[in-house]
């Protein structure tokens, strides 16, 4: 199980971004995880409180959006839904496809409380 490592890495990043923005608390974290990322969302959610204890994101709400598995067909040009172990084109059954969604392991966005924010630039 590598979800704890992934979670610790996520929190390093969240804390860095929070500090860059002068935030006092991270309120919400939105992740986007695809079935082909090798990361299991429930395990990640389970590991989160452990990894977040004592950080600015200790009380943050962790929301995990699942990315659908989708492929673009190089032969017929169509885009279609696929499954993790069958990434063929649904239209022409070609093997020559490119994944357009489904392997994401992304920190999508953060919501933070920033005390009396001056007109800060990024």
């Amino acid at each position: 199980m590598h979800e704890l490592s992934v979670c610790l890495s996520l929190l390093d990043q969240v804390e860095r971004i929070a500090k860059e923005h002068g935030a006092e608390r991270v309120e919400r974290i939105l992740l986007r995880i695809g079935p082909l990322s090798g990361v299991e969302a429930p395990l990640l959610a389970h590991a989160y409180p452990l990894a977040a204890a004592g950080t600015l994101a200790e009380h943050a709400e962790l929301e995990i959006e699942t990315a659908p598995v989708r492929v673009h067909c190089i032969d017929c040009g169509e885009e279609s839904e696929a499954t993790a172990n069958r990434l063929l084109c649904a239209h022409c059954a070609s093997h020559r496809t490119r994944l357009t969604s489904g392997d994401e392991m992304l920190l999508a966005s953060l919501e933070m409380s920033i005390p009396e924010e001056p007109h800060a630039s990024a």
Partner: protein
Amino acid sequence: MCDTCGCNITPGNEHLVRANGTHAKTADGRAAVAVLSSLLDENDHQALHNREHFDRHGVLALNLMSSPGAGKTSLLEATIEALRGELRIAVIEGDLETENDAERIRAKGVPAIQIATGSACHLDAHMVHEALHRLDLSEIDLLFIENVGNLVCPASFDLGQHRNVTLLSVPEGDDKPAKYPVMFRAADLVLLSKADLLPVLDEFDPARAEGYLRQLASQVPFERVAIRSGQERLAPWLDWLRQEVAAQSARRAEGKTARPSVQPDGARDEHYAHPHAHGPHAGHHHQ
């Protein structure tokens, strides 16, 4: 990958960029920041650094993955013998415990660094970086990183390697690519190991195994290998290695690098050579 310019925004995720500026406000007054970077950003950064290190020394780095007991170390022993005097090889060994595999490699007269991961089920870029401090890369053409035997976790961590090689051994069964799509999709070469057992284990159908691999939209070579004397079969693997070593020196001459064809964190091809992320020699403090 870069988390500042939006280069990792793809049609699949752009709707997530909900904030209109870096400090857009949510309804309840919180600051919302779109990030869109890999959860393993720090690992990826270290991997990039490792890859620069390999490229500077003209080393081809291969990440060898499989389930435990598929024959990674045995294949390396046979490979070292076969390429003796032709290519200078070194090995980084990842295991939960013991120095056993590194000792087997050293017995072949090749430098081997053992990483004992403790309870970690995979190698990460930081562990590999530590090991690199104990290797003289200027004396090496080809570095094998033998990952922890596991068909799940190692696929999610970029180590800085140029190519992934995944072994599937005959006793494991021919449906492994369907059961572990993340791992097999990441392979740049799949080796069917212990192929000399095919006549005895006739329930294993190599065509079916390859069929499952092709269903992952993978076009990579699928080659049989066997190392038991009398039934040795290494030629397609050795040829692939020679080609890759030659391709690496050609890339080095042009100042280019290569990454495995599938990246673990969803980074798409078009983001590989991001001009401002890191030049091939930028900001690197190794000599």
